[in-house]
């Protein structure tokens, strides 16, 4: 009785992702790599927002913290692996602290708290020149060599990012189907009942922020060697909104939502470039129409179509 459909789609998607960069120009490969990196950040935000129901407008800050950690450490001779560890620990701890306001406020109030944090991080990146070189940014960020495999070429680095995405997705999948994922969902749906069932809502809220932020840091560590030049504006509020959009457009609280959402956000504007000056308008209209008619995002839309097709095959008893 087991449905083979989903695993088949998954296999097909993996094959497409492996085959996609061949025959693409470096810019196309760059976009695919960017998609993989942004998906990792969006998976993190999906944990915090989609599953645990805690809104955050600061995900870009964690991408920024990760990117600067990677840039500063690897330009000083550290390996990307150790930079990754530093970024994860730093973002996990900062995310944990950022979770504290979420214990007191929710919804748009929490959005504002995270918004101010986002501004704070931006100001630190821009003004603390002794550390971050301010608006001049950091350039010459090296790409890593993995067990003798140099990822310097765009194609190699794409596969490096794809591998990182696969590992992240596997970890996130494990977490979501574990008791933690269930507790996160309980936190979102009914914290009062959750606490009466022994769920430590305080600890899980902080954990949801910390884990989501740590994944933002992972994305940042990959972003720095991908673009090889970073400056504070890349991690300003715009990226936070963009990541939020990815989660919601894809389908918040759905495992594959970030994958689709990031594809829409990274690739769609490029495909719309033929319309020249109109492409951002087309993109904006698409997002507005989607959210007006399907607030549950693309995956929600897919589920709705599947349920109505074939018409009335299943009736509840």
């Amino acid at each position, binding site marked *: 009785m087991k449905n083979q459909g989903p695993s088949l789609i998954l296999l097909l998607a993996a094959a497409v992702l492996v085959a996609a960069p061949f025959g693409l120009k470096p810019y196309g490969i760059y976009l695919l790599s960017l998609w993989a990196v942004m998906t990792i950040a969006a998976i993190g935000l999906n944990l915090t927002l989609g599953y645990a129901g805690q809104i955050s407008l600061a995900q870009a800050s964690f991408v920024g913290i990760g990117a600067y950690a990677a840039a500063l450490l690897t330009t000083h001779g550290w390996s990307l692996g150790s930079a990754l560890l530093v970024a994860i620990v730093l973002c996990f701890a900062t995310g944990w602290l950022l979770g504290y306001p979420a214990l007191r406020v929710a919804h748009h109030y929490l959005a504002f708290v995270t918004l101010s944090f986002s501004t704070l991080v931006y100001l630190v990146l821009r003004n603390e020149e002794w550390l971050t070189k301010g608006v001049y940014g950091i350039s010459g960020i090296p790409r890593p060599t993995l067990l003798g495999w140099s990822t310097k070429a765009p194609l190699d680095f794409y596969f490096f990012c794809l591998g990182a995405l696969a590992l992240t997705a596997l970890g996130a999948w494990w977490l979501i189907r574990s*008791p933690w994922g269930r*507790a996160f969902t309980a936190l979102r*749906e*009914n914290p*009062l009942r959750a606490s009466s*069932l022994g*769920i430590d*809502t305080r600890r899980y809220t902080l954990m949801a922020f910390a884990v989501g932020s740590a994944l933002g840091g992972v994305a940042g560590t990959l972003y720095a060697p991908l673009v090889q030049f970073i400056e504070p504006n890349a991690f300003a509020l715009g990226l936070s909104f963009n990541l939020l959009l990815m989660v919601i457009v894809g389908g918040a609280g759905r495992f594959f939502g970030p994958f689709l959402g990031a594809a829409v956000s990274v690739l769609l504007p490029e495909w719309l470039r033929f319309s020249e000056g109109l492409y951002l308008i087309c993109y904006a209209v698409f997002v507005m129409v989607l959210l007006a008619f399907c607030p549950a995002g693309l995956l929600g839309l897919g589920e709705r179509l599947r349920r109505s097709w074939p018409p009335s095959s299943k009736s*509840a008893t």
Partner: protein
Amino acid sequence: MAAVLEVRDLSKAFGGIRAVDGVSFAVHEGEILGLIGPNGSGKSTLFNCILGQLAPSSGEVRVDGRPITGTRPCDLNRLGIGRTFQLLQVFPQLSLRENLLLAGQEHQGTMWSRLLGPADAGLSAAAERMLEFFRLRALADEPAGALSYGQQKLLDVAMAFMAGPRLVLLDEPAGGVNLTMLADLRERLRAINAAQKATFVVIEHNMDFVMSLCTRILVLAEGRIIAEGAPAEIRNDRRVIDAYLGH
């Protein structure tokens, strides 16, 4: 016999209104205590003060002789105290099975062992037994929100028992449940009471239900206990009749 739950001189004021006014009582192991009273007499407020959802203005609550006033609800639950709420509280998007797993998982191992361990926290068999016991087996994979009100109510009660609590406070378990299911619910509660020596405190407006289930009944009116006794005594108590009729 030691009291499982002991409430001493508990009061809760909201501004000038004393919703609970100097209530004292004890519940013994294996007892099914009924808590009745007109609407607004302070029953749910009393529950919320006992269970840490509200901070009492004064007084003390002890479980097994240990003071628990001010303990967080999640910590109380892990001490073996379960509850249901007056209004239905299930997780509508999770399946019945997931709801039950969720209700038991925090009692299994530590936070880290739960992350690294199996997805069901080793509770699949227990959840299956609970589904069987409450005759919800056929619906195990449906989202809880798709169930009828009465079925959700059964699930709600089943969730309170998932962790094998020794003390359960049930706030109107019979509300909105049809007659057939009500008899069923009563039998389930009696069976758990007998098998696990679980102690219950039940708030209920359905008199037939409460009289046939409980061994002892407390009557609350305007925040105070006005009568206490076996169901037969309470049924004929003048003060109780007056309180309900509003004299």
